[in-house]
C-alpha cells in the first residue's frame, strides 16, 4: 500500500493541494491580521504559572472540540455521507459520563463508557445508512432529533436533579496541562495523527474516497462500499464522543439540551472551509483542522475586538459566504470580469 500515496502525490496534485489549503489559510491570515491591528499584543504568548498563555493558544484550545468532531465528519463526508447527529452524540456521551460518575465507577472506565456510547451511536447511524440504504441526512436526523432527549433521560436515571460532578482525571484531559501545553491539544494532536495514519497509511482512506466518489465503481473493483461507509460513521461517532468528554469535563456537568449545540453545523462548515465537498470522494484532514481553527479564530476575534457578541453570528455568516464565494469558480469569474469592466 505504501506505493499508492506516493503515486497520488504527483506534482500536479501537490499544486492542487496547495491551492486548496490556500483559501482557508488566507482567511485565517486575514482574520489574525485584523486582530493584530485592533488588539495590541494579540500574538504575544507568555508563560504564566508554567503554562502557555495567549490568544493564539486560546484559539487552538477552544477549537479543539470542533476540530475533533470535524475530523470525524471529514471521513463521513469523504464517503459521501454526512452526520447531523454529532451534537446529540456529544450530549449523550456527557450524560453517560455524569451518570456513571454518580454510580461511582472508576473514572478511567468511564472514558470507555463514553467512547463506547459514541461507538454505539456510530454503529446505529452506520447501519441505517449502509445496511438500510437510508439517505445520510435523513438517517442521522433521527439521532439528531432524539439524541438530546436520550441524554435527558439518562440524567433521570439517577434522579437527574444534579448532573454536575468532579473528576480529576477527566478534568486533566480537558482543562489540564501536560507541561506547558494544554492536555486537550496534545490529545487532539494524537487523534489527528491516529486518523492521519488510518486514512493515509492504510488502505482505509482510499476505500472511503473510492466509495464516496463512485460507490458502484468501488463495489465493482472489489471495495466493500457498504462496509466502508458503515466504518466512516463509527469513526465519526468516536470522534464526537471524545469531543463530548472534553466539553463535559470542561463544564463539570451534563447539560444535554445545550451541550454541543450547533457543533454539527460548525463541523460541517470546517470541512467545507477546508475545501471538502459534500458530494464526497475526498478527505482533507489537515485542511479540516484549519477550517475549525478559522471558525474559532473568528469567534475569538469578535470577542476580543470589543464588538458586541451579538455580532458573532452575522460576522461568521459573512466570512462563511466570503470563503465559499472565493472557492466558487463561477463567482471568482464574475468578480474578475466585473473588475476588468467586462460585460457578461
Amino acid at each position: 500500500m505504501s506505493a499508492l500515496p506516493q503515486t497520488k502525490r504527483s506534482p500536479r496534485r501537490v499544486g492542487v493541494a496547495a491551492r486548496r489549503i490556500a483559501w482557508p489559510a488566507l482567511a485565517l491570515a486575514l482574520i489574525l491580521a485584523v486582530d493584530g491591528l485592533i488588539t495590541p499584543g494579540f500574538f504575544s504568548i507568555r508563560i504564566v504559572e508554567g503554562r502557555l498563555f495567549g490568544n493564539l493558544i486560546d484559539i487552538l484550545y477552544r477549537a479543539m472540540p470542533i476540530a475533533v468532531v470535524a475530523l470525524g465528519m471529514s471521513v463521513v463526508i469523504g464517503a459521501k455521507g454526512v452526520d447531523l447527529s454529532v451534537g446529540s452524540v456529544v450530549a449523550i456521551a456527557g450524560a453517560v459520563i455524569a451518570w456513571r460518575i454518580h454510580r461511582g465507577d472508576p473514572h478511567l472506565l468511564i472514558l470507555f463508557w463514553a467512547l463506547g456510547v459514541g461507538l454505539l451511536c456510530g454503529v446505529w447511524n452506520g447501519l441505517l445508512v449502509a445496511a438500510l440504504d437510508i439517505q445520510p441526512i435523513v438517517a442521522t436526523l433521527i439521532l439528531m432529533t432524539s439524541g438530546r432527549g436520550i441524554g435527558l433521560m439518562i440524567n433521570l436515571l439517577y434522579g437527574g436533579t444534579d448532573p454536575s460532578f468532579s473528576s480529576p482525571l477527566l478534568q486533566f484531559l480537558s482543562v489540564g496541562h501536560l507541561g506547558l501545553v494544554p492536555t486537550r491539544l496534545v490529545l487532539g494532536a494524537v487523534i489527528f495523527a491516529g486518523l492521519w495514519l488510518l486514512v493515509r497509511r492504510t488502505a482505509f482512506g482510499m476505500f472511503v474516497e473510492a466509495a464516496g466518489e463512485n460507490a458502484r465503481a468501488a463495489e465493482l473493483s472489489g471495495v466493500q462500499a457498504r462496509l466502508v461507509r458503515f466504518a466512516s460513521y463509527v469513526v465519526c461517532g468516536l470522534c464526537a464522543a471524545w469531543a463530548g468528554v472534553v466539553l463535559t469535563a470542561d463544564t463539570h456537568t451534563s447539560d444535554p439540551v445545550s451541550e454541543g449545540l450547533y457543533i454539527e453545523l460548525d463541523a460541517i462548515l470546517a470541512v467545507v472551509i477546508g475545501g471538502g465537498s459534500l458530494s464526497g470522494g475526498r478527505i482533507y484532514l489537515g485542511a479540516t483542522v484549519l477550517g475549525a481553527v478559522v471558525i474559532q479564530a473568528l469567534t475569538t476575534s469578535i470577542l476580543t475586538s470589543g464588538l458586541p457578541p451579538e455580532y458573532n453570528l452575522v460576522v461568521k455568516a459573512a466570512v462563511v459566504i466570503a470563503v465559499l464565494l472565493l472557492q466558487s469558480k463561477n463567482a471568482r469569474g464574475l468578480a474578475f470580469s466585473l473588475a476588468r469592466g467586462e460585460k457578461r
Partner: protein
Amino acid sequence: MNERYRPLAATATVFVALFVAGGLLYDNFFSTLVLGDILADNAFVIVAAIGTTFVIISGGIDLSIGSMIGFVGVVIANLDAAGWHPLVSAGMTLAFGAAFGALQGLVVDFCEIQPFIVTLAGLFLLRGACFMINLDSTPIRHPFVEAFAAASVPLPGGGFLASSAIVMFVALAAAIVVAHFTAFGADIYAIGGDRTSAALMGVPMRRTVVGAYAVGGLYSALGGVIYAFYTSSGYPLAGTGAELSAIASVVLGGTMLTGGVGLVAGTLIGGMILGLIATLINFNGSLNGAWIMVSSGALLFVFIVLQRTLIAPSRLRIGG
C-alpha cells in the same frame, strides 16, 4: 392506488392511528378541540415546512427556516413599536423572505455551492440579525394583532379553528395549486428527479431553482408572521430548531430528501403528526419534553424504514 399517493396514505394512517390511540388512552382527547389546538400551535411550522417541501422536491434543503421565523417576528415587533400597521410590515417581511430565499437559490445555483452550506450561512445571518436588532422579547400591541390572535371559527364538537390555522390552509391550497397545476411546479419535480434530463428537456434551471428557494423563503416568512401574530410578540430566539421540525414534517409527509418525489399535502399531515405526539405526551402528564424528542425520533425512524422497505423498494439506490 396511484403509487405517488401511497406515502400520503401511510402518513394519514399513522396520524389517524395515533389520534385514535390518544382517544382510547385519555378522556376528552378525541375531540375537535384537541385537533384545533394542534393545528393552531403548529400552523407556523407547517407553513414553513410547506415552503421547504418545494426546496426539498427540487433536490435542495433549507436550514434558514427557524432563523427566518425569528427574524420576521423581531422586525414586525419593532416596526409595530415604530407605529407601522402590522399588515404593512407583514407584507414587507414576506417580500423580504421571498427575496432572501431567491438570493439563497441564486448562490446555490450560480456558485454551485451545496444548499446545506448556503442555507446554513442564511441561518447564522438571520439569527445574528435578530440579536443585532434586540435581545429581548418585544410585545406587539396593535389592535389588529390582538383581534387576529383571538379570531377563530367554531368547529362542530366544541373545537375552534384558529385564524393561524385558516391562514395555513389558504397557504396550503396555494402551494398545492403551484406544485401540481403549474409548469413551475412540474419543473421543480423534474429538476429534483433528474437534473441532467431536466436540463436536456429545456427546463429553465436557474429560474426554477431560484423560484423554489423563493417559495421556501416566502413560506418561512409567512410562518414567522403567523408566529408573531399568534404569540403577539417578536422574540429573537423564536423558531430555534424549527428547521428540524419542518424537515421532519416533510419527511414524515412522504417526501424524499433525494428530491423529485413527494406531495405538498403530505407535509401538513407530517407536521400534524409531530404536533400530535407532543400533545399526547403533554396529556400524559408524567412524561416530560425528553419523551417528545425521543418519540419523534422513533417515529421518524419507523416511518423512514417503512418508506424504504415497503413503499418504494424500486427506488433503492446505491450511494443514497
